[in-house]
């Protein structure tokens, strides 16, 4: 899944300068797991923005398992809020960049609506694990080399992202120069 953290609230607020009527949309996938765009997170963001004088026209919270990026499902929820989206000054997407752009594309291509869309999250890459600890494993490079690298991705796991390691910075006892507690990935 796509790990993510919330952007500082001030950054989101900065995007919304001069915008009064706001629609919030979350995601029932990764953003729910990382507490950056679940139904409760959307509610919380709504309250914070209201306190800052924003008028929240709509809060589109997707239940767990409904991914914003999968439009056949998420569009059902978008359609229920079409009026609010048409009236709003801006949409805050509490999802990853993929979800945000999926919605932007849907509104433009299917509804012919162009609205400012702002992210409230920073995505950190494809990560696995849980229920609480997650680690980045894949950067979706489109040229998977796992078959040649014994199931360990050097692009992600090596701090320098080197395919042909170990690098010249490896210590004499085989440790990675970036993290001396770790064995160099190529060894």
């Amino acid at each position, binding site marked *: 899944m796509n790990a993510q953290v919330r952007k500082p609230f001030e950054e989101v607020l900065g995007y919304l300068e001069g915008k009064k009527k706001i629609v919030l949309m979350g995601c029932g996938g990764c953003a729910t797991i990382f507490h950056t765009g679940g139904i409760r997170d959307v509610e919380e963001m709504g309250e914070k923005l209201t306190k800052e004088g924003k008028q929240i026209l709509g809060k589109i919270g997707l*239940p767990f398992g409904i991914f914003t990026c999968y439009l056949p499902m998420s569009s059902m929820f978008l359609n229920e809020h079409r009026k609010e989206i048409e009236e709003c000054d801006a949409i805050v997407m509490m999802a990853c960049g993929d979800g945000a752009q999926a919605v932007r594309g849907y509104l433009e291509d299917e509804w012919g609506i*162009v609205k400012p869309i702002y992210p409230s999250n920073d995505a950190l890459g494809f990560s696995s694990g849980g229920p609480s600890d997650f680690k980045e494993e894949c950067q979706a490079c489109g040229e998977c080399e796992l078959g040649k690298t014994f199931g360990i991705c050097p692009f992600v796991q090596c701090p320098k992202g080197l395919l042909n390691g170990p690098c010249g910075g490896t210590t004499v006892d085989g440790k990675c120069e970036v993290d001396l507690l770790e064995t160099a990935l190529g060894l």
Partner: protein
Amino acid sequence: MIYERAEQLGELDKLLKMIEPHHWSKAVRPRSLEVEPLELLEELKGTKKAIESLGV
């Protein structure tokens, strides 16, 4: 594409603003994250309710 969209939104002036370069070195690989675990059963109950409300 970005220019055209900014033009449609009437926000071309924002493209004139210089954006500071990102400090990529802070993104040490592999990144990791610790979060509060989900109340999975509660979340799934909410999903069931929402799916039913869509008539599925």
